């Protein structure tokens, strides 16, 4: 939907049904942000989707940076030049940005600087479930936690004001259920943004040499004392209800689940909702726990609020019973639903609740796992690699894999994902595997991920004379998160022209001697290159280059043409079902005669299946009619 303009047109007092991340984007307009940068990652990506469409018109500079660290460093410099700045990322992106983040409290900021971390409880699209609230505490900076789209917008504006007033960066932490929640959002006034600033030199605050940093640590701690008072009087921290013996302290999406659970429990609970949870508002929490006999801590993931509440109770000598994860009543993993919160509270307080029996049809339903799309070039690449291994009779090959759509090579029939840790780890772990084992190693990485964190690992591999094959799957986009441009394409956010970086030139310049670019749709050529590369001693790189099928579909539709469709000649089909099982394109299925057929609604017209390497009897041909 190109409806993102609506966020620009929205007048004060108007409301819309907005996604949390859309509300964040609107918040940037209301805060007058002039510089925004990201590396895309679910569940934060839609902020970038909106900015890609409207930043230019809003007078804001926006870029998809090469990684989160560079995004934050750019934002930090913009802030030091007086421009309100924003860097946003998924939770594991904060690990990449953390090197810069940890020192920004020391330098302080000028234009407001807010860093958004979108955490992913239940790991809907992530490799771990880390709780990034700890980063705020580690860096001695304020933490703001909204719980719904309206708060996401309002709290963000507040975070910018706080950042600017106190000269510190603010960590703005959402979760999947906040970023991907839709709700009614009422707009506030827009603030004029300025994308240009000017830098006044101040090396004794900004260049963190040991002599400078040592002095600044004291300043940071003094600032933190002021922030403690801010937290205690913050309008983001509110008490709902009053007069009950039972209280609950909560934040973020857990607040919603708590409030939705309470009507089903026969107990009155006063709720202290923390929107600014670091520095920990000790005055506020202290008086809350001392005025309640029992206090429940309802928070997702780590016992962040709980640990501080327990420490505070001990310091103040308060005997209130504190209930949370540490005493085993609330779960320490996965997101909280109203039902989970309700059961946990009931157990802690000894209340009986009647659970409704779920409807059980008594039939196992077939799963519908995510698959590589029909026409996906990655499938053809994996298929060619599988053929090469079979022909060379290679056994026990190790396949380090990486973060992106191609990660689905993990599943049958390819099963080429032996280890995936984080962005770029395919090449990093290939370094280790090739050193300590004598097994063949083939690492897979996408173009965007290669630039993000793969480059230093490739430098390391060449420098240390490693021996492995690196397959760079270049689909010329960051497909998984919404088709953001990586550095190898000639455009950037908003479609503005950019300088493309050649992957093959980079690999050659690093010193890789065997570099070959292939088209994965050409199975024979890809197979030949993979076989040749596997015979090469040292680090070899095969770049499988073919645009993402979804992008090509969009182009075909824009041009008003039809997507070609293929069909199986039932006379010629030998029923080997290689296309269904080994090639595993989802548009293929076996009919009741045991022969292969193509679902014309799903076929993407790539034509890879026509080749004899997929269909030995050459039974597949283009059909007369394409599809829309």
């Amino acid at each position: 939907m190109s409806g993102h303009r609506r966020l620009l047109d929205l007048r004060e007092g108007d409301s819309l049904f907005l996604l949390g991340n859309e509300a964040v984007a609107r918040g940037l307009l209301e805060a007058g942000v002039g510089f925004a940068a990201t590396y895309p990652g679910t569940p934060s990506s839609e902020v970038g989707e909106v900015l890609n469409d409207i930043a230019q018109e809003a007078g804001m500079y926006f870029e998809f940076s090469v990684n989160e660290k560079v995004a934050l460093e750019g934002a930090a410099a913009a802030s030091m030049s007086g421009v309100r700045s924003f860097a946003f990322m998924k939770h594991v992106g904060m690990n990449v940005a953390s090197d810069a983040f940890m020192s920004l409290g020391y330098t302080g900021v000028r234009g407001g600087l807010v860093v958004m971390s979108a955490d992913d409880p239940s790991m809907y699209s992530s490799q771990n479930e880390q709780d990034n609230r700890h980063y705020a505490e580690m860096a001695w900076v304020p933490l703001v936690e909204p719980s719904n789209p309206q708060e996401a917008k309002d709290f963000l504006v507040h975070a910018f004001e706080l950042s600017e007033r106190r000269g510190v960066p603010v960590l703005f932490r959402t979760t999947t259920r906040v970023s991907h929640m839709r709700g009614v959002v009422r707009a506030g006034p827009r603030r004029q943004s300025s994308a240009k600033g000017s830098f006044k030199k101040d090396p004794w605050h900004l260049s963190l040499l040991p002599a400078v940093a040592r002095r600044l640590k004291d300043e940071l701690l003094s600032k933190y004392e002021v922030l403690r008072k801010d937290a205690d009087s913050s309008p983001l921290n509110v008490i709902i209800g009053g007069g009950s013996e039972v209280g609950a302290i909560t934040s973020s999406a857990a607040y919603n689940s708590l409030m939705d659970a309470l009507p089903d429990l026969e107990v009155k609970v006063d709720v202290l909702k923390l929107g600014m949870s670091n520095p920990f508002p000790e005055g506020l929490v202290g008086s809350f726990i001392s005025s309640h006999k029992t206090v429940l801590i309802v928070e997702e993931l780590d016992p962040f609020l709980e640990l501080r509440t327990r420490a505070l109770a001990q310091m103040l000598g308060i005997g209130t019973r504190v209930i949370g994860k540490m005493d085993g009543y609330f779960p320490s993993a996965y997101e909280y639903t109203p039902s989970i919160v309700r059961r946990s509270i009931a157990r802690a307080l000894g209340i009986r609740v009647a659970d409704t029996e779920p409807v059980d049809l008594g039939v196992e339903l077939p799963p519908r796992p995510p698959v590589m799309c029909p026409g996906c070039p990655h499938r053809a690449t994996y298929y060619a690699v599988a053929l090469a291994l079979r022909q060379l009779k290679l056994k026990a090959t190790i396949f380090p894999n990486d973060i992106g759509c191609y990660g689905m090579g993990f599943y049958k029939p390819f099963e080429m994902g032996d280890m995936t840790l984080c962005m770029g780890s395919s090449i990093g772990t290939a370094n280790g595997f090739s050193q300590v084992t004598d097994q063949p190693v083939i690492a897979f990485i996408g173009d965007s991920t290669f630039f993000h964190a793969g480059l230093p690992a490739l430098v390391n591999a060449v420098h240390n004379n490693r021996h492995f094959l690196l397959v760079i799957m270049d689909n010329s986009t960051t497909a998984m998160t919404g088709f953001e441009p990586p550095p190898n394409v000639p455009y950037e956010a908003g479609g503005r022209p950019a300088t493309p970086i050649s992957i093959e030139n980079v690999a050659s310049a690093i010193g890789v001697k065997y570099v070959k670019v292939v088209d994965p749709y050409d199975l024979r050529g890809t197979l030949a290159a993979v076989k040749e590369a596997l015979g090469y001693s040292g680090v070899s790189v095969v770049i499988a280059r073919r645009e993402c099928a979804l992008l090509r579909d969009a182009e075909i539709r824009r041009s008003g043409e039809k997507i070609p469709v293929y069909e199986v000649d039932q006379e010629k089909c030998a029923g080997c079902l290689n296309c269904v099982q080994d090639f595993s394109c989802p548009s293929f299925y076996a009919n009741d005669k045991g022969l292969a057929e193509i679902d014309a609604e799903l076929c993407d017209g790539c034509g890879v299946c026509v080749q004899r390497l997929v269909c030995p009897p050459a039974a597949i041909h283009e059909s007369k009619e394409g599809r829309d």
Partner: protein
Amino acid sequence: MTQSSIGSRERLNIVITGVGGQGNVTAGIIMGEAVRLAGLNAVMSEIHGLAQRGGVVSVDFRIGDVYGPIIPDGQVDLVLGFELLESYRALSRARPGTTMITSTERIVPSSVNVGDAKYPDLAVLRERALSRGIRIYEVDAPSIALAIGSKLSSNMIMVGAAYGAGFLPVHIDNIKDAIRLHFRESLWDVNFRAVEAGAQEIRRVASTM
């Protein structure tokens, strides 16, 4: 068929389920915008990311006096399903008395294609669901969409069906205004017709039961 309205209960909980690409997130957006325009509260949640084409896309949609988008266990009032298998799958979150309005569209999952799993007998599923107190209404959305002249309008037919069955406490003009807000003008008319056809069809289906 029972008419439910927000006046008679404080909340309405709807699971909108389907397969990636069927447009059920867009359906939820239109429903939510319409509810907002009717002056009520709506929240919904969508799961993005790994759910690419072909994966399950499930949306929790809630109207009324609620905070978060996650529907508590056993409190689903309506399963609005865009694909038969996914409609039945979503019943694991239902209770006796839950209504299921499902499109008759079938999309065979890849696990069945590659022979890892079997497509279930839909007649058995239907019979078991009925015996567990689920009210089932089937809407032939693909055929109606074809008749309207846009295969892509199936999702608005299902929105119309939810409205026609009394699960959307809004005026039809609220839905049309929501469509105007979210689609470009050339698509308004076909989507208006889809909503109307869906509402008409669910009334017809209900009257034959």
